[in-house]
C-alpha cells in the first residue's frame, strides 16, 4: 500500500469505526433478532396498526418532500439574488428556526398552535380554528408535522444550496444573460442542472429523515393527546419491542425501513450518477 492510500484510510477511519459500531453492528444484530422468530416479518406487517402507520408516513412524505425541495431551492435562489443587499441577514433569519429542534421545537409548536396561548391566535381564528381541538385534529397532523419538519430543516439546506449556487461560474451566467435568458430560464436551465448533485443529496437525507419521523408524533401525543402512540412506523417499532415485548417484530420493522431508505438512496445515487467526476466524463 502506498503511503498516500494509507493516509486516505487513516482519514476515513474515524467514520468507519463509528459506522461499524453504531450502524453495521446494530443492523447485523437486528437481522439476527428478526430471524429468531420465523413469523417476525409477518407479525410486523400483519399488525392492525401497520397499514395506518404506513398511510400516515406516506401522506407525510408526499407533502413534506416536495415542499422541502421546492421551498429550499426557491429560497436559495432568492437569497442569492438578494446577496448584495440583505443576503447575509436573510441566511441568518432562515437558520434561526433550525436552532430550535427536536423536543423543544415540538413544545414551541404546541404553544403556537393553541389558540388560548398562541400569539397567532387571530390568524388561526381567521382560518376558522378557535380551539386547540380544532387545530390539533388527527386529520391535520400530517400538515402540522410537515410544517414542523420543514421549519426546523430548511434553514441549513438553504445555506448549503446557496453555497452550491455560488459555485456556478460567473461567465456561464453572463453568457446566458447575453443570450437573453429570463430569471426562470437561468434558474431552471443553467443553475439547477449545475447543482443537481446537491439536490439529490438533499432528497436522500430528507427522504430518510421523513420516513423515520418519530419525535413529533410521539411528543405531540404525550402533550396534546392527539394522534396515537403508533402514528408513525418508528413509533410502532417502539411499541412492538416494549409494549408487546416482541423484539423480533420490532427488528423486522426497523430493517424494512432501512431497506426502503437504502433502495431509494441507491436509485437516486445511480440515476444522478452521483459519484461521477469530471475525469470519468
Amino acid at each position, binding site marked *: 500500500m502506498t503511503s498516500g492510500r494509507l493516509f486516505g484510510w487513516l482519514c476515513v477511519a474515524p467514520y468507519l469505526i463509528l459506522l461499524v459500531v453504531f*450502524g453495521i453492528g*446494530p443492523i447485523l444484530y437486528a437481522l439476527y433478532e428478526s430471524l429468531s422468530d420465523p413469523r417476525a416479518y409477518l407479525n410486523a406487517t400483519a399488525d392492525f396498526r401497520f397499514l395506518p402507520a404506513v398511510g400516515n408516513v406516506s401522506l407525510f412524505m408526499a407533502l413534506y418532500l416536495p415542499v422541502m425541495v421546492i421551498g429550499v431551492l426557491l429560497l436559495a435562489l432568492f437569497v442569492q439574488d438578494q446577496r448584495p443587499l440583505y443576503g447575509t441577514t436573510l441566511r441568518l433569519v432562515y437558520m434561526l428556526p433550525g436552532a430550535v429542534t427536536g423536543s423543544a421545537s415540538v413544545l414551541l409548536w404546541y404553544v403556537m398552535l393553541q389558540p388560548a396561548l398562541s400569539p397567532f391566535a387571530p390568524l388561526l381564528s381567521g382560518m376558522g380554528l378557535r380551539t386547540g*381541538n380544532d387545530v390539533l385534529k388527527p386529520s391535520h397532523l400530517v400538515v402540522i408535522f410537515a410544517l414542523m419538519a420543514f421549519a426546523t430543516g430548511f434553514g441549513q439546506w438553504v445555506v448549503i444550496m446557496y453555497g452550491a449556487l455560488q459555485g456556478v461560474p460567473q461567465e456561464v451566467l453572463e453568457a446566458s444573460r447575453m443570450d437573453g435568458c429570463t430569471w426562470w430560464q437561468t434558474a431552471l436551465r443553467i443553475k439547477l442542472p449545475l447543482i443537481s448533485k446537491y439536490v439529490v443529496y438533499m432528497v436522500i437525507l430528507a427522504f430518510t429523515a421523513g420516513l*423515520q419521523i418519530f419525535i413529533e408524533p410521539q411528543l405531540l401525543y404525550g402533550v396534546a393527546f392527539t*394522534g396515537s402512540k403508533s402514528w408513525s412506523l418508528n413509533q410502532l417499532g417502539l411499541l412492538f*419491542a416494549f409494549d408487546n415485548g416482541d423484539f423480533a417484530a420490532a427488528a423486522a420493522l426497523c430493517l424494512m*425501513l432501512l431497506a426502503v431508505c437504502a433502495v431509494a438512496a441507491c436509485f437516486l445515487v445511480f440515476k444522478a450518477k452521483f459519484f461521477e467526476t469530471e475525469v470519468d466524463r
Partner: protein
Amino acid sequence: MIRLRIPITACLAAALLTACSSSTPAAVGGAITEDRDATLLVWSDPTRLAGFEQFKKTHPNLRMKVETYDGQSLLTKIQLFNRTGKGWPDVVFAGQPNVVSQFAGKLNYAQPLDSLIPQQIRENFGTANAPCEVGGKLYCLRNDLAQTVLWYNKPLMERFGYQLPKTWTDYRALGERVAKEHPGYVIGSAGSFFTYYDYFWSSGCPIQQVTGPDKVHINLKDAKCTRVADVLDPLIKNGSLTKAGLFDPEMAKLGKEGKVLMLPGASWLGDYLFKPKDLFATPDGQIAAAPYPSWEGETTNWSGSAGGGVYLVSRHSKNMKGAAEIIQWMTTDAGYQKSAPTYPAYGPSADAWAKRLATDPFYAADPFPVMREQAAKVNPVQQPTRYDVEGAFTQTVVPAIRSGGTVGTGLDALQTELVNLAKAQGYDVG
C-alpha cells in the same frame, strides 16, 4: 436532519443492548430472600423521593440507594433488564396500577407479597389493593386512591338555586337547565380520555373486565356503556359539557373565569386542578365534593378511578424482606402519609391525612367524608390489563367528541380498537 435519524439507530441499538441473553431469565424459585448486606435499589418518582429519603434516614440498618426515573419508560427498562438478566430495581413506585398486569404476568417481575406483608396491614387497606391482586395473589401495595367524586362550586350552585344530582339522570337534567338558564357554564369535560375514568368506569361498562388468566370481556354495546353515551351526548351538544379535555388550555380558561359549576372527577382534582394558580386558580371557600351520582338501576353510587400509584417488590431482589419493609413503611407510616399529596390508600393513613383537608381554607366544605365514602365504592368491574385504554379512547371516542360527533358513534370504533389491542397483547377476548 441528523437528529431525525436517531430513532432508527436508537431502535437498533436498543436491540443490540439486549443481545446478551435472548431468553427471559427464569424466575427466582419463589423463596423469600433476606440478605441484609445487599444494597436495595429503589426507583421513585420525584414526589415520593422525600418519603424514601426519610425512610433511609430512620432505618440505617438497611442499605439502600434511591433514584428517580422516567415513569414513561418503566416498561421499556424492565423489558431490557429481563433480556440482559440484571439491573432490576428492588423496589419501584409506579404511577399507574395498570403496570401490575405486565409485571405480575408476562414480564415476571413483581414478587407476590402475601407472606411479606402482615395480614393485619393487608386488611386495613380495605378494597384499595384490588388492582394489585392477580390470580389470588397480592403483587403490589397501593400508595394512593384516585376515586372519583362530584366536585362542585358551592356558592355558584346556591346562587343558581340548583340541587346536587343524585343520579346521572338528574345530572343530565341539570345540564339541560344550565344550557338554557346559564349558557357558558359547564358541568363536566368530555374531550379527553378521562371520560373513561369519570363516566364509563363508574357505569361498569365492560372495557377492562378480566374473566380469567389472559381472558377479557370487552363489549361497548352493553347497556352499561350506551347509557353513558345517552347522558353525555345531549350535554355535549348543548354545551354544558365542554369538548375541551381536562388539562387543555381552554379548560384552564373556563376554570379561571369561574365557569366550572361542577366536575365529576378524581379525588386529586381539588388540589391539582382547581387550586393551582396556573390552572383554575379557584378562590378559597368555593369548591366542595359531593357523593358520586348513581346510574339508572344501580343500588350503589359507584366511582371510577383515575390513577393511584403502587409500590412493587422485585422477585429478583436479594433482600425481599427489606424491600417489603420499605413499601410497608411508605404506605402505612402515619407521620409520612399525613402530609401525602393525594388520598392515602391505607385506611389509617387516610384518617391521619384527613386533618390536612379539614383545616384547608381552600375548600368550602371538608371533602374528606365524601372521598372516604367513595373510596370503598370504586366499581370493581375494571381490572388492570396490558392494553392501553387511554390510547384507545384518545384515538376513537375523543376525536369524535372534539370534532362535534357523538360518543355513541365513537363506541364502535372503540370496540374494534380495544379488541385489536387486547389480541395484540395475547388476550383471548370474549
